[in-house]
Structures are given as C-alpha cells and as structure tokens.
C-alpha cells in the first residue's frame, strides 16, 4: 500500500503546489511520463517476482526519463522530433503493456 500512498501524495503535491513546467521543458514532459510509467511498472513486476532491487529501480527510473527526453530533444534539433517521440512511445508502450500483462497474471492468476 505504501507505493499507492506515494502516488496519491505525488498527485496531491502537484495539485497543491501548482508547479509550472518551464516552457523549454514542456515538450519533454509527456515522454518523461511514459518513461517513468515504464520504470514503475517494471519495478512493480519485479516486486511480484521477488527480485526487486532498489538500485536497479532508481537507476532505471532516472535513466529512462533522461534518455527518453534526450532522444526527443535530439529529434527536435534534427527536425524529426515527432517521429522520434513516436518511436519512444512505441517501444516504451510495448514494454508497459507486456509488464502490465505479467502483473495481471500474477494478481489474477489468469
């Protein structure tokens, strides 16, 4: 239940403090969220399989977010930003789906 509480705290903090993203970082926010989602679902799956590791989770979370944002930044500089965003979302989307499917199997045994 602690992770769920963490999510709620994060959402409430976002609403309460009304943080605004700097204009230059705005294009990278959605991609960063997808990358974070991927890391989080990977972590949850690892917990369910009993192989969770703090270090791996933290590193994968931060690296995912930074690399995803960097790829999109690079794409923007090269004029193919939207295509690279699509590529990032496809790859991370596949991983999220497969991981969530595994989590579902662990929970419902179906």
């Amino acid at each position, binding site marked *: *239940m*602690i*992770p*769920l*509480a*963490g*999510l*709620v*705290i*994060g*959402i*409430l*903090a*976002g*609403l309460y403090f*009304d*943080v*605004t*993203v700097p204009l230059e970082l*705005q294009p990278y*926010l*959605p991609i*960063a*969220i997808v990358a*974070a*989602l991927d*890391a*989080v679902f*990977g*972590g*949850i*799956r*690892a*917990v*369910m*399989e*009993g*192989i*969770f*590791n*703090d*270090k*791996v*989770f*933290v*590193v*994968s*979370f931060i690296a995912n977010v930074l690399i995803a944002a960097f790829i999109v930044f690079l794409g923007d500089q090269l004029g193919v930003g939207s295509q690279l965003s699509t590529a990032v979302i496809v*790859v991370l989307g*596949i*991983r999220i789906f*497969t*991981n969530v499917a*595994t989590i579902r199997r662990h929970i419902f045994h179906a």
Partner: protein
Amino acid sequence: MSLLNDLFAKPLEPGYEDAAARRRAAGEKPTSERTWRSPALALGLVALGLLLTMAVVEVRNTASVVSSERQGLIEQIHNEDARVSRLQDDVTALESEISELEDSLLQNSATGQQTREEVESLQATTGAVAVTGPGVVVTVDDAEEQNAEDGTDRVLDVDLQQVVNGLWAAGAEAVSINGQRITPLTAIRQAQDIIQINYRPMNAPYEVSALGDSRSLANDFAHSAGGRWLSSIAGKNGIYYKVSSHDSLTLPAGNTPLSYATPGEGAS
C-alpha cells in the same frame, strides 16, 4: 527483428535478473518476497504522480489560454463586421438622399427631366443603382468529386470571368454574382483558392444573374465563347452548371467609387 523480439520477450529491465543472480551467487537470499516497503518504489511513484499532475495542469492551462485568445479574435471579427455593415447602411442612406435631392432639383425644368432620365439610364448601366427585369441565372458549382491535384475540378476565377463575358456578349444589360453587382470596375480574381468579387470572398455555388431578353439570352449565351467554355469545362472537369430563365430578377446596386477619374470640362 531481434530488437523487436527482445522487446517482447524481455520487457523487464535485465538489471533485476542480474542483481538477483549476483545475490544468489554470493549465497544471499534474494530480496524477500514482495517488498512493497521499498522507499525507492514509493519515491518513484511520488515522482510519477507529480509529473502526471504537472502535465495535466499544464495542458489544461494552455487549452484555456488558446480558447480565450480565439474567443477574443472571434469577438473582434464580429464587432468589425457589425461596424462595416453599419457604415454600409450609412452609405446607402446617404446615396438615396443624394438621388432624392438630385430628383427634386432636376424635376423643375424640361432639360432637367431629360438629364434625369439620362442619369438614370447611365446609373443602371454602370451598376450604380439596383435594377429589376427579366433575365437568366447561370448556376456554376464545383465538381461533386474533387480529386484533381491542380484544382481544375473547382470553379476558378477564369471560369466566372468567361461566364460574365459570355453573358455581356449575349446581350445582358446587368450582371451580378451571388449578390455582388458586376460594374466596370469589378475584379473577379482568386486569392488562395477563394474567389473574390469586389474584394469580397465568395463560396460555391456561384449564381450569376443577368438581366436581358429572357427568351434569347439563354440561347445566345450557350453559343457565346463563355457558354462554350462552360460546357467544355463541364465535360472535361465535371464542373456543374445550370442555366434557368426568370421573369423577374432584381440585381443590387454596385459600388463604383471613382478615385482618379473626374468628368472633364469638355464632357458632353
């Protein structure tokens, strides 16, 4: 394909497996079953929640800014439109006042009467006053299915020019398109796929009304260069057109402001 295969087969970070294998090799027990208490995971979820809320709040804010800007522009357009039509009304009122004053001045003498009749016929020809009479209406519309890349299956400015010229050639005495009177100073031209007549944007279908002998006008028009042009583009590009005769048509007054030309001394 191996990249995609990997993606499907091993969606979990390989790091977890490696770390667990190392611990097993070192003789430690792998992390206890289901460690929901990990502070790292909780922190990660806090970050995720924060990111999500920031993104949602941001999107909402920009959406409201954009829509309020657009609302402002729309209001401005409506205001200016209203101002233009108010000024147009003023112009019409002043013009009718002028012609009333002219009439009252000219009515008094025989030469005045004659001048008045002359002025009236000249005004009708130049499109300065609204005219009524029998005539034909030529309706021209874009082709039903538009897939030509160069836009030839839409009505072009040159098509309307040909139609108007054909109608003049067939003996039309006054012409208007979609309520815009064609005067000697009218331009029918296209800007960005929009046909402008008297600098007003027009939309298809175009109704070209012409006053003249309603029995012969339609026939003469069909045999004029404009009529032949129309039937040729109808056959080639699928442009729709229809010619119908009417017993009574009313064409509105046009606007012919003369900026440079003034009646000369020797004008009779």
